[in-house]
């Protein structure tokens, strides 16, 4: 009986230990991003899409893809410019974080994939990625960046960028239909 009780106590102790060990990781995952971290994510995410557009402008000959890539390069640069003006005004230095690193790691793989393709295969890969990337960016802005932002001007800039990204997604999906016929 005593042995059984001891086993039960040890099991409970082990479960509690595992739970306690897991807590910091869970806490970290759910930690709110600070404004400097949000600024870093916003600038990085926009910069990545400019880099995808630069690849498209080099590799594609499709008028719709080129037009879309030109719009992405200009619009995302415009968002970066406004973010830089804002962080300069606020005296905030963008700070790298897990989300920024995750975006950058994904971008390295995607750029390698895009650079390995040619012709229509490239056009399809580029526009498919634009659809997926904008969906992910919209989700991040809507569910994480806007709720976490504490500075009202930063929050407002993110809120203004959201309809822009949604329009980009709609535009990308329109071009995508051309390659899915």
């Amino acid at each position, binding site marked *: 009986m005593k042995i059984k009780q001891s086993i039960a106590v040890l099991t409970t102790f082990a479960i509690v230990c595992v739970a306690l060990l897991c807590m910091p990781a869970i806490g970290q995952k759910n930690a709110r991003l600070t404004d400097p971290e949000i600024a870093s994510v916003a600038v990085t995410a926009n910069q990545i899409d400019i880099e995808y557009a630069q690849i498209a402008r080099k590799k594609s000959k499709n008028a719709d893809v080129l037009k879309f890539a030109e719009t992405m390069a200009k619009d995302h640069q415009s968002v970066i410019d406004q973010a830089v003006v804002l962080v300069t005004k606020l005296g905030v230095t963008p700070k790298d974080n897990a989300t920024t690193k995750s975006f950058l790691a994904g971008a390295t793989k995607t750029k390698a994939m895009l650079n390995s393709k040619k012709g229509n295969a490239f056009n399809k890969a580029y526009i498919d990625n634009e659809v997926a990337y904008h969906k992910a960016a919209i989700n991040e802005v809507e569910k994480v960046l806007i709720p976490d932002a504490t500075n009202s001007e930063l929050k407002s800039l993110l809120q203004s*960028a959201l309809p822009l990204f*949604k329009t980009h997604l*709609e*535009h990308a999906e329109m071009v995508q239909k051309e390659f899915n016929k």
Partner: protein
Amino acid sequence: MANTYSILKNSTYLLCLIFLLNSCTSTPEKPVHKVEKAIHKVYNVEIKQMQFQPAELTLQKGDTVVWTNRDIVTHDVTEEKNKLWTSGPFAPGQSWSLVVTESADYYCSIHVVMKGRLIVE
């Protein structure tokens, strides 16, 4: 002689009568060339949150529409079907106007999913 005198007298009476009658009637109005000056209106369309607001306008021929860019990126306003007119790119904070002569569907040629309509009655 008396007959001549009588004729002159009657003629004088007749002339006086004609003069009096003429005086009593109202003078005809001078023709007035009425210039129909239509009052043309000015309508404002704001470009914000990646939409033309309002997206549809019903107006009269000769009315003016002023588009103002309240977004964070450059836009344009372009007639969609035949590219009959376009504003060219205009930056945030800038405006562009058009005197409307016919109905048109228009769009932003930079963000092709943004669309608007002008209906001339």
